[in-house]
């Protein structure tokens, strides 16, 4: 390591910090112990670093910033509180609505299970027309037309009625 390399290594060196634990910095510091010119440079550099650091830390913080941050927080907390109250009210409303609706929703539908309803439904089923079924069956078997069937049925009925009589 030459003097210039040591200077580059020592640029981020901060006196009194853990920087000296870095092996490269430790090596550069050891070189500075032996090299008077590098040592002088390092002393100056450390002094400059100190001044820079102090100057950075002297950036003046405007008065009232802390109070402003805290008061903003308090204001926003109040807003959050009112938001919380709204939420609580909404929860109550939902709860009331559920209390009203749930019993209605789960109430037993007794009227559907009565015998009279069942009977009516069955009668309806029994009385419904079967025309479509008949036509479909007839067409499937390529049977004669409905008119022919009707004519035959009438003739059969007449014949039978004659016999019965």
């Amino acid at each position, binding site marked *: 390591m030459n003097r*210039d*390399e040591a*200077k*580059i*290594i020592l*640029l*981020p060196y*901060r006196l009194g*910090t*853990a920087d000296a634990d*870095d092996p*490269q910095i430790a090596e550069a510091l050891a070189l500075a112990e032996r090299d008077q010119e590098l040592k002088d440079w390092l002393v*100056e*550099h450390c*002094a*400059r*670093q100190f*001044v*820079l*650091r102090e*100057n*950075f*830390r*002297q*950036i*003046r*913080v*405007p008065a009232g*910033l*802390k109070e*402003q*941050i*805290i008061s*903003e*927080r308090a204001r*926003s*907390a109040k807003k959050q509180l009112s938001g919380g109250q709204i939420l609580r009210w909404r929860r109550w409303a939902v709860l009331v609505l559920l209390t009203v609706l749930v019993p209605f929703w789960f109430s037993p539908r007794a009227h559907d299970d009565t015998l009279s309803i069942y009977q009516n439904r069955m009668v309806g089923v029994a009385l419904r027309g079967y025309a479509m079924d008949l036509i479909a069956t007839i067409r499937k078997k390529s049977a004669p037309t409905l008119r022919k069937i009707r004519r035959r049925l009438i003739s059969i009925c007449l014949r039978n009625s004659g016999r019965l009589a």
Partner: protein
Amino acid sequence: MAESPDFEILVSRYYEPLYQFAFSLTRDEADSYDLVQQTYYIWANKGHQLRDITKVKTWLFTTLHREFLGGRRKLVRFPQVELEGAEADLPVVSPPTGSRLDAAQVLVLLAQLDEVYQAPVALFYLQDYSYNEIAAILEVPLGTVKSRLSRGLCHLHQLLTGEKIGTSKQRNL
């Protein structure tokens, strides 16, 4: 998970270094004021998401830096000016006057560094942060932080002293 620290204690503890960091980035009092307030506002709303409460300080600095970068991206009020073209407008800082510097002059010097070097250099001086901490705050790899610091400090040294060291071969710490 540790208990969340009291908001006021958090403000008392960190508002000054946060403001100083913000000011070293923006060099504007109002912008820095806003940045710090915004940082604490975000903490108030999202701070509970931080699992490791010991990292509050890093979280605050990271948030402030993110807000700064976000603001810079949105910024259309101020056109970007290349440093070479604006040299005449910058205040003159006479070189080897380390001991006679003040905060304003230091910030002028910092402003002359490339933008990517400014945040690590400011953190380096402001808080004595380790490289790992700076990397965590800026959300960049450790190697990048070391390299940026090395270049930034080298440039700063050059501005202060006029001495040019190792420009051809930058050390990667």
